């Protein structure tokens, strides 16, 4: 027997104390949200053999304003993590060196681009290991606890938020600095190309003419806290993770498992589907993902709830996606405005889903964020005022 109802009543509330998005379209949450509201996308066409043998659409940092530090102490991946955490820590006024504060890092491939740029490095194995990067970031800010690293494909960002929330609710820590980042290089790009999964145009989530994903890089940080001084901020009400047990790279045919994760999330949060005001979908714009997601949204009774995918602005930012898209959706809650799904024109999925097509002012209280990934994993999390 499950005991989620007890869960809500006995667990301390988890507040979002601060956040940051460090992306090709902006270096703060406010800047990112303003630009996304203006319909600005980071996706551009690149003709760069370091990325791809053919021209390709990606959302990457402009190399002229590279984020890599001058002394090359930190890799691009680590520099992104540090830049994002730094801004969020300043906003939250949280002491990273406090023993009640933990750092959680989310990434799918971390420093993997070093295989391309520095393959002969003697310490390559250690430099690529995600725990090395996490330790460097922790050391930079003086975190005293060992950092945690989540690497669970494209649900990593949501899972890192859930992991942080649970560690706070168990009383082990008071603050969790949750940061995610991924860098786009030939390694990842060629892999998705080999799957024929990359769109030749900027991605078109849920559209009838969608032909695949567009990749993007970026970082984002969400600082969670149970400290009462943040009462009144947006809360993480709960979340759940499930596995399709069907295929390692293809999504479920029915959407049942993602729908189960959504329903468990709602139960844990003490909510019903009618309470959800906005669904921030994964919406990668592959044929199978969007179809599965639409089925799951319908199964969970959310067909009429306004839904969007933010992949048209950022591309698929992999281990950062769950964080970037959650933070943008939280801004939507704060500003009472739903963002359109850039790239979407006409519905191209078989189950009903209410894809938002224009900037829509609406009183919003609660947002559901979902993601799915290779390995058959699905995740959902709910945020509320």
């Amino acid at each position, binding site marked *: 027997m499950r005991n989620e109802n007890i869960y809500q009543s006995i667990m301390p509330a988890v507040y979002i104390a601060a956040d940051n998005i460090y992306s090709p379209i902006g270096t703060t949450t406010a800047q990112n949200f303003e630009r996304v509201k203006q319909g600005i996308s980071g996706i551009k066409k690149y003709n760069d053999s370091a990325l791809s043998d053919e021209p390709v659409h990606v959302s990457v940092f402009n190399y002229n304003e590279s984020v890599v530090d001058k002394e090359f102490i930190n890799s691009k991946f680590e520099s992104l993590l540090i830049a994002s955490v730094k801004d969020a820590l300043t906003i939250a006024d949280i002491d990273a060196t406090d023993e009640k504060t933990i750092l959680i890092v989310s990434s799918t491939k971390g420093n993997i681009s070093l295989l391309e740029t520095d393959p002969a490095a003697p310490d390559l194995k250690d430099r690529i290991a995600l725990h090395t990067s996490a330790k460097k970031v922790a050391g930079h800010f003086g975190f005293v606890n060992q950092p945690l690293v989540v690497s669970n494909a494209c649900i990593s960002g949501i899972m890192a938020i859930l992991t942080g929330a649970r560690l706070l609710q168990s009383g082990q820590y008071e603050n969790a600095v949750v940061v995610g980042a991924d860098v786009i290089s030939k390694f990842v790009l060629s892999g998705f190309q080999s799957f024929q999964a990359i769109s030749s145009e900027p991605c078109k989530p849920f559209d009838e003419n969608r032909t695949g994903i567009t990749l993007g890089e970026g970082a984002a940080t969400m600082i969670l806290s149970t400290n009462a001084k943040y009462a009144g901020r947006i809360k993480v009400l709960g979340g759940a993770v499930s596995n399709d047990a069907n295929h390692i790279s293809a999504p479920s045919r029915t959407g049942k498992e993602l729908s189960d994760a959504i329903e468990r999330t709602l139960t844990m949060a003490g909510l019903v589907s009618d309470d959800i005001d906005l669904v921030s979908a994964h919406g990668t714009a592959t044929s199978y993902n969007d179809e599965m997601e639409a089925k799951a949204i319908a199964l969970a009774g959310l067909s009429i709830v306004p839904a969007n995918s933010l992949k048209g602005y950022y591309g698929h930012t992999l281990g950062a996606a769950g964080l970037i898209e959650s933070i943008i959706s939280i801004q939507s809650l704060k500003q009472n405005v739903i963002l359109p799904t850039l790239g979407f024109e006409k519905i191209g999925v078989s189950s009903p889903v209410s894809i938002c097509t224009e900037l829509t002012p609406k009183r919003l209280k609660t947002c559901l964020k979902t993601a799915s990934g*290779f390995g058959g994993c699905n995740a959902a999390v709910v945020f509320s005022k």
Partner: protein
Amino acid sequence: MYINNNITFRCTISKNVIYKNEVPVFEDRGADVPSFLLSAYQFLEVTYPKFYKMDNLSKLAWLAAEVLLKGTDIKSYKPEEVGLILTNANASLDSDLKYMESVSDIPSPALFVYTLPNIMTGEICIRNNFKGEDAFFIFEKFDAAFIETYVNNLLNNGILEACICGWVDVLGDDYKAVLFLVEKKEKANSVQFSKKNLNSIFDNLIIDKI
């Protein structure tokens, strides 16, 4: 309320020996990693064609899960009640290196799909129809304290009824898998689910002397 959970079964694969509950059940000393994994699969006498297309990391995890779960009543749980919390140090680097070699020629989708550590979790879920929560964490070394806290949280808050957790790592010739089945109820050979017991089973000091 503190609830005592139990390690009801465990499996270690290390140095070409497979142990079930600390008892050696198979060995093939001298074989290289791919040969050892294949001979271990043949020893199990099961037919699972998907095994052959897996990378070494997924093969190792899949074998450890097969041995771990044999003779258990894991099927008595509902699919969504069973989950996996796995950890390692090198993520999927063993396959990342192999995939990268293919990139200069023709990038291989069959290799690329294994360049994520949680694919092994997916393989175990597919084999056993486990649909509960799964998660993959990267640590420099096996972190028994984290496993104890995290899995207790999942079991004691009703998120899972049974959890397969542990460590599965492969890089070149180095590998180690230690999986634990953690359940609420005690079983014949169970030991308390504690940091101390996780560490002593992981280190397997007595067995390594054989």
